[in-house]
């Protein structure tokens, strides 16, 4: 459990991409979009529990990056800066309490023959075994617990566990101290442990 090495902003290759974009290299922006948009969609999804809203928010986040290209200053890792924008957008979305989903997200897709077809949903494997069904059920339980957590707790846990950020980076994203992040992650983990007690207790040393 060694402490993680930290990059300075200028050592971060994604910061370099952003600086290239700032100088007009749109390919650099495309690379950042391709690399980070799945993570931002994923983060927003676990925050908002809606794929449509998550995708819309992720697009807003990258539009923000696009708009701020001239003002960008590499003060932190690119991912930290990006998720700070994402977290703020998600919080605003939650606070607004009303979710406008773009027509693109809701409208049926018209295929090449002019027929309407359903949107693609997450893959389901009809041949999945008991183990995978159990894993899915556990995931649903975790999802419900995360939804009940205060947003700063679930965000701290998601950023730390799913995005692999250090506590310091999470602190920068959430605008709090590293100590506060330690406490947020601890409480979120304790809530998960309590909520999944039947599974956790069955685990023997």
């Amino acid at each position, binding site marked *: *459990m*060694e*402490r*993680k090495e930290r990059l300075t902003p200028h050592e971060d290759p994604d910061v370099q991409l952003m600086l290239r974009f700032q100088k007009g290299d749109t390919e650099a922006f495309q690379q950042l*979009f391709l690399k980070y*948009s*799945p993570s931002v*969609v*994923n983060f927003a*999804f*676990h925050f908002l529990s809606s*794929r449509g809203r*998550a*995708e819309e928010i*992720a*697009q807003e986040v*990258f*539009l923000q990056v*696009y*708009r701020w290209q001239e003002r960008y200053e590499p003060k932190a890792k690119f991912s930290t800066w990006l998720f700070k924008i994402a977290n703020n957008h998600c919080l605003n979305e939650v606070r607004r309490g009303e979710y406008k989903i*773009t027509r*693109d*997200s809701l409208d049926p*897709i018209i295929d090449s023959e002019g027929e309407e077809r359903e*949107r*693609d949903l*997450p893959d389901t494997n009809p041949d999945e075994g008991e183990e995978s069904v159990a*894993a*899915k059920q*556990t*995931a649903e339980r*975790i*999802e419900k617990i995360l939804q009940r957590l205060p947003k700063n707790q679930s965000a701290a*846990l998601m950023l*730390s*566990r*799913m995005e692999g950020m*250090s*506590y310091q980076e999470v602190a920068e994203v959430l605008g709090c101290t590293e100590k506060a992040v*330690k406490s947020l*992650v*601890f409480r979120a*983990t*304790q809530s*998960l*442990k309590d909520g*999944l007690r039947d*599974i*956790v*207790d069955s*685990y023997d*040393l």
Partner: protein
Amino acid sequence: MTCERIRKELVAYRHGELAERERTRVVDHLSTCLSCTREEAQLARVSQLLTNLERITPSPNFATTFQRRLAQEGRVEQESRLVRWWQEWLSSWQLAPALAGAASLVVFLGYVLSGHLTIPQQAPSRVPAEVVKQSEPSRIEPLAQAIEQPELFANYGAIADLDRLAHFDEVASENAPEPEPAVAREEELPPALLENPSFFASYPILQRMEQLENMESVLSLSSGNEEQHNS
């Protein structure tokens, strides 16, 4: 360290977020405390369960939709850049005061052309008598000189814009229809012009017109020049 304090550190310990000193304390404690070791194992299990969480991937039309929004954003950006450029251009050129000065000049030219300069085939003036009365010939003379020497205006940006003013050609033309009486209406002429209509004829002042913010500065310059001239 007590078990309670150690347990508060266990999550950060698992995440590799403890400083070396703290980490050593936890490791030492775990090597002697079965209860805390069990707690640590349960937290490890929670971490493992978290990996069951579905990692959402964007839908197939996600990138296309974004591209469309980006294109729209680009159009808006272009338009706002145009507006910004337009505003900067306007402010840097100080078009408003320049045109105001030019407009005053046109009004005054109209006034003069309509009644006080000897221009062949000129129609009889309809300038109200009271305006004519206030315009003494001695004051008009320098202006007449200025009109005869158009090169005086050559470097003045506002003059170049006079052609943007509606009907300027008509006003300036010898065959122009009679100026509208309103051109020479006294109440529309700046009081400063009525008092000292010759100041436009002074070349240095004309050069400075672009910088005019208010009439007072013109007057001070004008009176300064007159004093200089007189001396």
